[in-house]
C-alpha cells in the first residue's frame, strides 16, 4: 500500500476497502496516538483486508491482533483512551458486536459524561455491516439502530470510497466515540478519492448529502442501500419520475434539515435500509419528517427495509433485502397518494 502522502499530487480511483485502509494509514501517520486493534488485523490484514499492510508499516504495538473477545476489545480501548490513546477498532462482522454491547453502551457512550468532560473517548469502532454477500448467519446484519438509540455515541456510515476515506479520517479525529459502519458488500466498489484535498473535510461528518436531485419524491438511504436507491432513481427516471436521492451518512446525529428541505420540495419520502423495519432508522426519520414537514407531506413517509424476521439464510437473502423493485413499489405507492 503506497501511502497517500507519497502520492499526494492527484486523486486516484480506489476501492472502498482501499480507501478505508488509506484512511487508517494516514491517521496513524498523522498522530502517533492512533492505534488499530481487532481480530486478525495484523498479518492477515483483517478478513476484508481493510488493515492490509498496516502492521508492517506501524508495528505490532500499534496494529494489534487482539485476544478473541469483543468485550475485551472495547473495554481495553476505553482504558487506552483514558491513558490518552485514540484506538480504532475493527469488529470482524456486524453480528459479533454484541459481546461488546455492554462496554459500548455503559462505558464508551457514557464515560465522557460521567467524568463531566474530563476524559475524552476518541474511539472509532469500525463495523462491516449489511447483507447480500451470501454469508452464513451473523455475517449480514444491520445493527445500526441499537447504536443510534444510544445517547453519547455518534453513528455514521459511508456509501462510496471518497466518503469512506474522509469520514473515517474525520471519525478518528473526533474526540467522541464514533460507530463507523462499513457496507461490506460495497468494499470492492471503486470510486475517486482525493486524499490530498487540503481542506481535509470536504463535507462535514454529520451532514447528509443530496446525491441526485429530483422533484417527485425523495429517497433517503445510507451505506449499502445508497447505490440501490441511485439505481432505483435511474429506473424511475425512465418512467418519468424524478427522484431525489439523499445519502444520510450520519445516523446519529441526523441531519434532519437536509431531509426536511427535500421533502418540502417533493412532498413524498421513502426511507430505505436493510435493517428490520420495526424500530429501525426509518422510524426515526419518519417521525422527524412528519413532525417538521407536516404540511409538506402529500403522502405518508414509507419505509422499505428488512422484514421483522431474523436475517434469513443466504439463498433467500436477495428476496429479503430491499432492492430496486421494492423501492420502486414504494415509490409507486407514495406517488399514488
Amino acid at each position, binding site marked *: 500500500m503506497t501511502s497517500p502522502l507519497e502520492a499526494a499530487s492527484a486523486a486516484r480511483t480506489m476501492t472502498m476497502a482501499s480507501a478505508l485502509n488509506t484512511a487508517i494509514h494516514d491517521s496513524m501517520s498523522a498522530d502517533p496516538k492512533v492505534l488499530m486493534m481487532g*481480530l*486478525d488485523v*495484523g*498479518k*492477515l*490484514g483483517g*478478513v476484508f483486508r481493510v488493515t492490509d499492510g498496516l502492521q508492517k508499516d506501524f508495528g505490532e504495538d500499534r496494529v494489534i*491482533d*487482539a*485476544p*478473541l*473477545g469483543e*468485550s*475485551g476489545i472495547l473495554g481495553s480501548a476505553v482504558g487506552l483512551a483514558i491513558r490518552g490513546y485514540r484506538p480504532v477498532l475493527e469488529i470482524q462482522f456486524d*453480528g*459479533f458486536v*454484541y*459481546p461488546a454491547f455492554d462496554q459500548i453502551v455503559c462505558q464508551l457512550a457514557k464515560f465522557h459524561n460521567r467524568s463531566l468532560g474530563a476524559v475524552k473517548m476518541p474511539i472509532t469502532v469500525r463495523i462491516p455491516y449489511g447483507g447480500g454477500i*451470501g*454469508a*452464513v*448467519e*451473523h455475517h449480514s446484519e444491520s445493527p445500526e439502530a441499537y447504536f443510534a438509540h444510544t445517547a453519547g455515541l455518534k453513528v455514521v456510515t459511508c456509501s462510496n470510497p471518497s466518503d469512506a476515506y474522509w469520514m473515517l479520517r474525520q471519525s478518528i479525529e473526533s474526540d467522541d466515540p464514533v460507530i463507523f459502519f462499513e457496507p461490506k458488500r460495497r468494499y470492492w466498489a471503486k470510486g475517486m478519492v482525493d486524499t490530498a484535498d487540503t481542506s481535509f473535510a470536504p463535507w462535514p461528518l454529520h451532514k447528509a448529502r443530496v446525491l441526485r436531485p429530483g422533484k417527485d419524491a425523495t429517497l433517503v438511504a445510507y451505506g449499502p442501500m445508497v447505490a440501490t436507491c441511485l439505481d432505483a432513481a435511474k*429506473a424511475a427516471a425512465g*418512467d418519468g419520475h424524478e427522484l431525489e436521492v439523499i445519502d444520510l451518512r450520519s445516523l446519529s446525529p441526523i441531519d434532519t434539515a437536509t431531509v426536511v428541505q427535500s421533502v418540502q420540495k417533493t412532498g413524498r419520502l421513502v426511507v430505505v435500509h436493510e435493517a428490520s*423495519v420495526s424500530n429501525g432508522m426509518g422510524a426515526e426519520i419518519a417521525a422527524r419528517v412528519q413532525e417538521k414537514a407536516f404540511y409538506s407531506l402529500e403522502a405518508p413517509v414509507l419505509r422499505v427495509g428488512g*422484514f*421483522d*424476521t*431474523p436475517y*434469513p*439464510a*443466504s*439463498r*433467500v*437473502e436477495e*428476496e*429479503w433485502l430491499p432492492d*430496486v*423493485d*421494492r423501492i*420502486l*413499489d414504494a415509490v409507486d405507492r407514495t406517488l399514488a397518494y
Partner: protein
Amino acid sequence: MTLHGHVPPEPDLVQLLTPEGVRVDHPDFPLEITDEEIKSLYRDLALVRRFDGEATALQRQGELGLWASCLGQEAAQVGAGRALRTQDMAFPTYREHGVAWCRDVDPVTLLGMFRGVSLGGWNPNENNFNLYTIVLGAQTLHAVGYAMGVVRDGAVGTGEHDRDTAVLAFFGDGASSQGDVNEAFIWAAASNLPVVFYCQNNQWAISEAVERQTRVPLFQRAAGFGFPGVRIDGNDVLACLAVSRMALDEARSGQGPTLIEAYTYRMGAHTTSDDPTRYRLTDELETWRLRDPIERVRAYLVRDAGVSQDFFDAIDAESEELAVRIREACRQLKDPTPLEPFDHVFSEMTEELAEQRAGYAAYLDSFEDASLKGAS
C-alpha cells in the same frame, strides 16, 4: 521469594497411539479396545475426511457459500463423538463435522447450512446434537444450562447406564478467550454440573496463533476454576476416546466438569474464505502432516492388527459412494421460498408479522401477474 518467575513444568500430553502407529499405554488412562473397534474408528475417520474434502470441493464449485473444514481434527472429533452415549448431548461449534457424523446427523443437512438454504435446520433433540453455533463460545453456556436441566431431571449419578447423562461442549483455542466460555467454567464448577468442556486447540484462530490467547497450556485453566483439566494428543483417536470416556463417565456419575484440551492442528484454511499463506509457514504444516490422525491408525492396523488391503479398499469405495451421494443431494437442496423467512420467527406467527408477510406476498404476486420481477 518473588511472585513471578515460577515456571510450571510442561504438561504431559496423553497419547495412546504414536504418530508412527505404535500403541502405547498411559498409566492414568487405560483403554480396553479391540482391533475391530479400532477398524470402526478408522472407518469413521476416513469417511469424515472424505465428506469434509467433498464439502470443500463443493464450495469451490460454487455449491456452498462457505465451508469450515475439519481436516486434521478428525481424531479429536471422532474420539470424542464415539465416547458419547445416546442420551448424552453435544454442543458443537461450526467445525464439528466429525462429531455430527458420530451422532448420525446427515452430512447433507450440514451442507444445507453452508449452502445457505437454512441457518442450521436440524432438531438438536433428535440426535442429541445441538445446532452449530457460530458466535464463539455462546454454546458453552447452553451446555451449562442443558446440564442444569439434566441434574433437575435426576439424570445424573443414578448408576443407570442409559439414564445418566453427560453434556459435551466444544470450543476452540480462540474461543477460550471469550467471556462466555469462562462464565461456563464458573457455572459448571459452582454447581458441579455434568459437562465435559472439549477444547480443540488447533493452534489457530483464523490468523491468530494460540499464543495470542494464552501463555500457558489451555487445559491448566480448569484447575483455576476448581475442576480437572487434561491435555491429550488430539490427533490420537484412542487418547481422545479414552479420556473423553473417562470424563463423560465421571460427569454422568456426578463428579462434575472436566476440561479436555485436544492438542491438534487445523490443516486447512480457517474456512474456504481464508488464505493461511498470509500468516503461517508451511513448515508448521509439514510437521503436523507427520502427525496425521488417520495415517497412524492405518499404520497400526496394517502392522499390528494384520488388517488386509481389502478392508481399506472397501472403505475407499464407501467413501466414494458417500461423496457421490452428498454431492448430488447437495445440488438438489431446495432454496427457501421468499416467504419462508417469516415461518419460524415465533411459535405462532403474530398478526403484525402475518400482515407484513401478506403485504410481501401480494407484492410478489403482482410480479407474477406482470409475469416477471425486475422488469420495472
